[in-house]
C-alpha cells in the first residue's frame, strides 16, 4: 500500500503543470525539496538515453533547487533575448501510475505533451515524453525530490527552457 493514492499523486503533478502553464515560477520552485534532482537525459544514439549524469551528457542536470532558481532568475532578468517574448505553453499529463514507494517516498510515472506557441516567431512546437517523479514527505508536505524528464523529440527547434518541458 503506497502512502499516496493514484489520485493524490496525480493531483501533485497537475498542480506543477498548472504552475508552469501560468509561468508562476515561485510556487513551482517551492514544490521541490532543496536537495532535489532535476534531470533531462540526452540520447546516446537512436534508442538509448544517457544514464550516468557524471560520465554522460544530459540536456539538463541539476542537483539542488538553488539551480532552478538560477534558471528562473535568467528568464526574469530582462537580459535574455530568448526570454524577452515569453512563449505560451500548455502541459497535458496522462497515464499517471504510482509505480512504487513506501512511507515517505513515492515514485510516479506519467506521460506528457507540452504544446508551445512561440509568440516571437509564431511557430508552434509540441514536446513530448515521460516524467518520472519522486515525491517525498518533507515536513508534513509532499514535495518533488526528483524529476526525470525523458524527452522523446530531442531535436530542439532553436531553444527549449524549463517551462516547455
Amino acid at each position: 500500500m503506497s502512502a499516496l493514492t493514484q489520485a493524490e499523486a496525480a493531483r501533485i503533478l497537475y498542480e506543477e503543470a498548472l504552475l508552469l502553464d501560468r509561468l508562476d515560477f515561485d510556487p513551482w520552485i517551492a514544490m521541490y525539496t532543496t536537495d532535489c534532482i532535476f534531470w533531462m537525459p540526452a540520447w546516446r544514439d537512436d534508442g538509448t538515453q544517457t544514464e550516468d549524469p557524471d560520465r554522460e551528457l544530459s540536456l539538463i542536470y541539476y542537483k539542488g533547487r538553488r539551480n532552478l532558481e538560477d534558471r528562473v532568475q535568467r528568464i526574469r532578468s530582462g537580459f535574455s533575448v530568448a526570454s524577452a517574448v515569453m512563449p505560451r505553453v500548455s502541459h497535458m499529463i496522462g497515464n499517471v501510475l504510482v509505480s512504487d514507494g513506501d512511507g515517505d517516498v513515492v515514485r510516479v510515472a506519467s506521460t506528457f505533451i507540452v504544446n508551445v506557441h512561440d509568440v516571437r516567431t509564431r511557430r508552434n512546437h509540441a514536446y513530448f515524453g515521460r516524467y518520472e517523479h519522486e515525491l517525498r514527505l518533507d515536513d508534513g508536505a509532499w514535495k518533488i525530490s526528483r524529476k526525470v524528464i525523458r524527452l522523446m523529440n530531442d531535436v530542439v527547434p532553436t531553444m527549449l527552457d524549463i517551462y516547455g518541458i
Partner: protein
Amino acid sequence: MKPFALHDLVDDRPHDGVFRVARTLFRDQALFELEMKHVFEGGWIFVGLATQAENPHDYFTSFIGRVPIIVSRDGEGELRCFVNACPHKGVRLIQKVCGNARRHICPYHSWTFDSAGTNRNIKWKKSGCYGEGFDDDSHDLAPVAQFGEYRGFLFASLNPDVPSLEDHLGEARKLLDLIVDKSPVGAVELVPGRVTFTYAANWKMQLENCSDQYHFTSTHPSYIRILEQRAKEESAQVVKSSIAASEFWQEDASGVTGGTMSFDHGHVLNWGVMPVSAALPEFEHAEEWARLHGEAKRNWMFNMRNLTIFPNLQIAENASSQIRVIRPIAANLTEMQTWCIAPRGESDEARSFRIRQYEDFFNPTGMATPDDTVCYEEAQLGMAAQERPWLQGHARGLTASVEGGNDYSDMIELRPARSVLADAQLCDESLFGSYYRAWAQRMSEVLA
C-alpha cells in the same frame, strides 16, 4: 553566364580599409544551392572522430552537404568512408546513427555489402538475365573521393581535386594538437549523449558567432550574472564556473587579453587568456603538461580557444569543451550537431566538472546558447532588408590585423596567416574575412 558576381557579395578592398559582406549571402536560396555543391560537396568537410568507430565493423552515419555517408571500420581495422546509398536503386543503406555490423543489407532488394563497402551479394544475380555491360559498373559502395585523418579528426571530400588534408589543415593542425595532447593517451572522445538543434537562419550565422567575441557581454548578460553569483557563492550545490574566474571578456581588464588568428583555407581562432587555475577541469594536469609539453604550450592548453576548421567544424574550449558540426539545410535553416568532447583518460572529477559546465553553457536547453540562436533568427529577418545591401559587422579590428603571428603564437611556433592581439574591448571582426575568402575560393567556379 554565372549567376552571381563576387563583388556583389563580398566587398574586399584592403587598400581602402573596407571589408563588407552582403545580406544576400545569408538569404538567397539559389546561392545556397551553389554553396551546398561547391563549399560543402566541393571540398574538405569534417565528418567525425575516429573514436566514433573504434572497433572492427563499427560504423556511424552522417552527411557531406546533402549526401548521406557512412564511416565504417572494416574487418582489418581500417577506417573507410562511403556514400550511404545502395548502387542498385539509391536507397539509403544504413538508417541508424551508429552501430556495429559485418554485413549491411539494403532494405529494399537485399543487395549486401561488407564493412569495407565491397558488394557481397546481388540477390538472384545468376537468374537476373543481366546484360553484358552490367558488371562494367562497380557494384560496391561508392567511396568518397578523399578521406583522411588527423589525430582522430576525420575529414572527407566528394571532390577529388583538393589539396592534401595536411595542406588543407596547415598550421591549424597545431591547434588540434592542443586539444588532443590534453589526453594522457593522445585521443579525444565524444562524451556519450548527442544534442541536436535547429535554428531558422543561415549557417554562416553560426560560423561567425563562434569567433565573435563582441557579442559575449551583450548577448549573455543574464548568464554572466549567474556565473558571477556562482563564483562568489562557492557552495557545493551550484554548478562551478570557470569563465567567471577569467578576465578575457571583462571590459575593464587591462593589457592583452587575447586575440584572433586566421589561417589559410578559412580556419580561424578566437582566443582569450585563461589562468592556469583550479577553475578549469584540466588543472589536475597542469604540472604534468608543463613537464611534457613545456610551459608555453601548457598555458595555451588552458587558454579559451574557439577554433573553426572551415566550413563545418567548430571546437570551443573554455569552461568546458564542445564540438559542433554545422549542417546547412536551407538558406534560412541550419541543423547543429553538438557533443561534449573530452580527453580520453581524464579523471572522474574532471569529467563530471566538464559535463556540468557544458550543459548550462552550450545546450539549447541551457542558459547561453538560446540567446545566441534567437539572435541568429532575428538577424535572418533583418537580412531581408534590401535598401542597404551591405552589413557593417566585419569591420572591427581591420587596422589591428597584421600579417603573420605575434609573441603569443611564437611561443608555440604557430604561424597564422594573419593575427590580432586584443584588449578586452577590441573584439576583432576582421578574422571573418578569412571565412569569406575561403568561401569565395570554393565558389570561384560559379562566381563572376
